[in-house]
């Protein structure tokens, strides 16, 4: 692996973060744009859940993770604390994987 890759990726990745971070500054935006911005986490974090649960690379897959995340979702719904949710997800996934 070349240092060019390491440094170019470091610069590029930081540029992505910083551009987003400083782009809008303190400006007040139109209410419709503010509403859209406020929805970014709901849209993107939900998409992360889907990607991490149902895909491997470019393939949609159903595997042990689905059971783990389903169990975790029930735990979240029942207001379980964060650590319990993580332990349930990992435990159920590992269990199903070991049995399969």
């Amino acid at each position, binding site marked *: 692996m070349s240092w060019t890759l390491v440094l170019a990726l470091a610069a*590029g990745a930081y540029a992505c973060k910083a*551009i987003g*971070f400083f782009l809008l500054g303190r400006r007040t935006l139109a209410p419709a744009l503010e509403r859209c911005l406020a929805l970014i986490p709901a849209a993107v974090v939900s998409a992360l859940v889907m*990607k991490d649960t149902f895909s491997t690379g470019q393939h949609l897959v159903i595997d042990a*993770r689905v059971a783990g*995340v389903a169990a975790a979702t029930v735990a979240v719904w029942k207001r379980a604390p964060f650590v319990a949710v993580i332990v349930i997800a990992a435990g159920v996934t590992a269990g199903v994987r070991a049995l399969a």
Partner: protein
Amino acid sequence: MVTASVTLGAAVGVFGISFGVGAVSAGATVLQACAMSLLVFTGASQFSAVSVIGAGGSTASALGGAMVLAARNGVYGLTMGRRIEGPVARRLVAAQLTIDESTAMSVAQEDVAAQRAAFWITGLSVYVFWNIGTLLGALLGNAIDPRTFGLDAAFPAGFVFMVWPLLRTPRGRIAAALGSAICLALVPFTPVGVPILCSALAVLVGLPDDERWPDRRPAQ
């Protein structure tokens, strides 16, 4: 919230170990592996770059794929940049910490003070664990497979916990459903990283004004 941040950091640390192992076996030196985690600090991009190089790909192709994955941090920056205050130097550090985990943990909090605290604690916790993990993995050369312990499900589960409070409003639920659908629909047809970026288009559901979306009215 501190417990949650540290738990998440520890889970990330295990993936840091597997990144260190993967980087070294793909031909990186220990120093390069550690430099990547310290400077690049966005796991998906790092794994992607290393796997392309390990498979014999060029620097350009490794960089291209990794940058597509890194671009979503810009989307998080749009959200976090408006919440994190302080001198420019502090905000420049905050930008480096703007990743999946810190953003998601932050937006799950009720008020602005807690959102800021969650961002910093989670970002720093993940930073420390990710880098310690990378160093350990790079030095050890082989380590546990996080999948054996189901840790690959820990992240989506953590994200479910974090997104839950955002689903209280009808608009939040629609954005979440739409973002999810866009992501799953694109996974088989686009390069890795593109589905997450495109899921952000779901925020357009925010455009119509409140009269048609009664989510700001008090409960009847």
